[in-house]
């Protein structure tokens, strides 16, 4: 479905990604892991066609994607419909006057005949049916996340990119989202630094090192069992424990949000 070859990107002289090479096949559920600042969000934005990398080639369905090519109206329209990105801060995505309009925004752009049915379907799935006439601004953090997701799914994307989707969710909503994503029959790439949840979000892990390089690309379980790689990616830490007179040190996963 997509292929990145030698992708390198820097912001104002600061490296964000170095020589990233990977392929993602249709229907895969991929988890993108890495410490804060490793370049996870930048990589998602490149895949979403929102940032053109300084170097390398990005191909989506055998078509090169960059800012110049996305000026082609037909390509841009098809690409934006098929590739959806859920931002870490859902507030950035919500700007319509009501929850209904927010979900209907994408289908209306496509002039679809079943806008109302799509809105009601996705509002139902996300448990937002009784809030359709409310201001998106007035919803709770978890509800905003669900609304942003509903707005993306109403267009029928083929590739869903999720940037730290569980970082602001309560445990119940986190559990619901994991179950929901497992059943979603499309390609999903999810970023997280929560190692406990990572195996639930996908079977393949892409891991970015603090040097912004791809440290691991493969099944997630062997990566989680490799203490050296986990330390290299700054995804575990160790500290001293005191049990009375006894003192020892061991690794801990970083499951903070």
């Amino acid at each position, binding site marked *: 479905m997509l292929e990145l070859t030698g992708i390198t990107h820097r912001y104002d002289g600061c490296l964000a990604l170095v020589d990233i090479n990977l392929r993602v096949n249709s229907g895969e559920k991929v988890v993108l892991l890495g410490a804060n600042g490793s370049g996870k969000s930048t990589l998602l*934005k490149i895949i*979403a066609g929102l*940032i053109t990398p300084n170097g390398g080639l990005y191909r989506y369905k055998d078509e090169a994607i960059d800012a110049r090519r996305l000026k082609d109206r037909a390509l*841009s329209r098809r690409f934006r419909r098929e590739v*959806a990105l859920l931002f870490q801060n859902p507030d*950035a995505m919500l*700007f*319509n006057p009501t929850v209904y309009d927010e979900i209907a925004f994408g289908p209306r*752009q496509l002039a679809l005949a079943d806008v109302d049915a799509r809105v009601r379907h996705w509002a139902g799935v996300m448990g937002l049916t009784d809030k359709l006439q409310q201001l*998106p601004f007035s919803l709770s953090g978890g509800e905003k996340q669900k609304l942003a997701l509903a707005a993306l799914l109403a267009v029928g994307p083929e590739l869903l990119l999720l940037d730290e989707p569980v970082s602001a969710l309560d445990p119940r909503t986190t559990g619901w989202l994991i179950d929901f994503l497992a059943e979603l029959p499309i390609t999903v790439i999810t970023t997280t630094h929560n190692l406990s949840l990572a195996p639930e979000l996908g079977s393949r892990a892409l891991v970015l090192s603090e040097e912004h390089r791809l440290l691991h690309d493969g099944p997630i379980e062997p990566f989680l069992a490799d203490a050296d790689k986990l330390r290299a990616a700054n995804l575990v830490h160790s500290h001293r424990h005191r049990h009375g007179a006894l003192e020892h040190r061991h690794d801990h996963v970083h499951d903070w949000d």
Partner: protein
Amino acid sequence: MKRDRLLLILYLTAVVAATLVHEPSSLAAALVVLLLLAGHDATRLLRRSLRVILVFNLAVSLGYVLLAWLRGISPWETLLLINLRVLLLTLLTFLFISRVNLFRALDFSPTLSWLLALAYSQALGFQRAHAEFRLALASRCLERPRLIDRYRASAAAAAWFMDRALATARESALALRARGFFDA
């Protein structure tokens, strides 16, 4: 260090002077001097200044033209004065920021340095958030966003920024209080 402080004093003096001068020709001359001082950066800074003041000055100028027309007076001299002064002050500020390290200029006062650090970190945070909002709108639009969508997105972003600014200001005030900033 001394250079930055000296330039800060010069800048503040120039700002006060620019507001006291009421001759368009003097303001125009000052503008030329500033552009000469800017050297290679002159065109870039002038373009940036014009872009920043365009909407505000256009709105004020149109309002003033309407008022002058209703009162039957000529608006042109005042319009020239207002626009020249705003352009001069904006260019002066951009030139000052590009040439002076504010942290070094204010290092004589721990309080001012502290406030500058707070303001700077807030500005950086908002700059990043603004880029995020812009990309989010682009990602949701299958075509070039319509004007109404741009307005709505801007309004939603403004509301979010206000909310965040208020929350951050409250947090900062509490943090300052905890560190004894408000103690006599």
